[in-house]
């Protein structure tokens, strides 16, 4: 603890910390390369939203609420307007936030609105769902998605954990939209993989917190509408790759699609369970 911390009451100087045993029992490395981490999901938790979903994967906890269709005022619009706002809870460190923060010059350190990282996340989700939602069916309305990141794995300093977060946020948003009863052309599900350049091996849903060597990989998150001709509705490739060729690209997409399909089938059976 910082000695100069005068803002809170500190414990007695001779205090002993409680002896809490190591809780992590299972080693996460047991996962095979094409295995997705176990997830917990639940829809309809937020009572006053039109639809909501909650998702936990390891340390990543996401909650999504959907409001709409709600009326707008002002101009007539023949298709609904659609907005997404992703926010990290205030105490959660954001992946790679140092890079995108303006360290110098800016007078205020107060967070106003969304941070650049939150904006990027919001934009990814918006782009990915724009085609899916049948906006034509909701004239004069707005559909608003609010994402709260309750906990995130941010041990990695690069964009890669952001990619993984994009993946889970989009999956969770998909469930929340279905829960809201807003008509969609197809559910959007995503996959995220990492390709190690030296070994040329694909790792599905990589867990960046666990001594994963990340310097030498190219990473991809990709969102699909699997039942609608497997079209790509959103993707983002990032990572340390200095020459991207078609083969690498195809490999990344194929594996993302594989993961997306797995998640889709999981979601299908979950949703089936909620109605029967």
């Amino acid at each position: 603890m910082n000695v100069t911390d005068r803002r809170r009451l500190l414990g007695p100087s001779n205090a002993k910390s409680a002896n809490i045993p190591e809780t992590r029992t299972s080693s996460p490395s047991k996962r095979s390369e094409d295995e997705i981490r176990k997830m917990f999901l639940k829809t309809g938790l937020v009572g006053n939203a039109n639809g909501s979903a909650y998702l936990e994967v390891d340390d990543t906890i996401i909650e999504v609420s959907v409001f709409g269709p709600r009326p707008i005022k002002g101009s007539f619009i023949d298709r609904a307007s659609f907005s997404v706002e992703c926010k990290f809870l205030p105490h959660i460190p954001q992946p790679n936030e140092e890079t995108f923060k303006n360290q110098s010059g800016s007078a205020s350190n107060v967070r106003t609105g969304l941070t650049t990282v939150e904006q990027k996340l919001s934009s990814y989700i918006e782009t990915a769902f724009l085609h899916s939602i049948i906006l034509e069916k909701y004239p004069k309305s707005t559909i608003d998605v609010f994402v709260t990141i309750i906990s995130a794995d941010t041990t990695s300093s690069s964009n890669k954990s952001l990619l993984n977060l994009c993946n889970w946020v989009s999956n969770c948003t998909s469930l929340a939209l279905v829960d809201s009863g807003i008509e969609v052309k197809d559910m959007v599900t995503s996959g995220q993989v990492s390709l190690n350049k030296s070994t040329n091996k694909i790792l599905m849903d990589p867990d960046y917190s666990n001594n994963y060597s990340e310097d030498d990989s190219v990473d991809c998150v990709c969102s699909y509408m699997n039942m609608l001709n497997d079209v790509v509705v959103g993707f983002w490739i990032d990572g340390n790759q200095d020459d991207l060729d078609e083969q690498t690209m195809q490999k990344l997409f194929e594996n993302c699609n594989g993961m997306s399909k797995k998640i889709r089938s999981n979601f299908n059976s979950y949703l089936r369970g909620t109605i029967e």
Partner: protein
Amino acid sequence: MELYSPEGLRIDGRRWNELRKFECRINTHPNSSDGSSFIEQGNTKVICMVQGPMEPVLRSQSNPNQANIEISITIANFSTTERKKRLKNEKRLVELKATLERTFEQSVMCKLYPRTVIQVNIHVLAQDGGLLAGITNAITLGLIDAGIAMYDYVSSISAGLYDTTPLLDLNTLEENDMSTLTIGVIGKSEKLALLLLEDKMPLDRLESVLAIGIAGGHRIRDLMDEEVRRHGNLRLSKVNV
């Protein structure tokens, strides 16, 4: 450092009543605005772009009697030697904006354009003293280029008082060290559309400072007028092809 030497020379070698290099261009952004201009007053560089008069985006901007003039000022982060991130809602900028809007609401014949808005976008690329003066001159030219009716030129210049000597058209170094007055002169008259004095100036010296300011303003007006005519004739010659 001596701002004004006993020989009567300022840091940049000017005499007390000399202007810095003043250059202006009209119609610099013909494809993205209704009227535009670029001025260099010493090292202060300002771009002005005017849109309108046009239909306001929001009903609340609409005044049934006259046009609303809205001025937005962007000061580039790189405009000073030391780079500084600037917020748009900085108090000084908000004040500046209000001052300018008031000035031009009087000089532009707003009554001719009811229910419209005149949007003025200012970009300050470099500043070296005389910011308000530079912006005012840029707006005057931008409005003229947009064909918006106004009573006369508003030409602006800063002047300061060093000990007992009035100095014309201050640069940053001078501005930091003496009380500065910025005036906007209407045409060739001795009437002012704008006067800004943010610190103390002895009353008995005010007149001499104003006098040199007005003289400087008239000179600026002539330089601007010359550019307007040059551009206008160029344009007419093209039309007559």
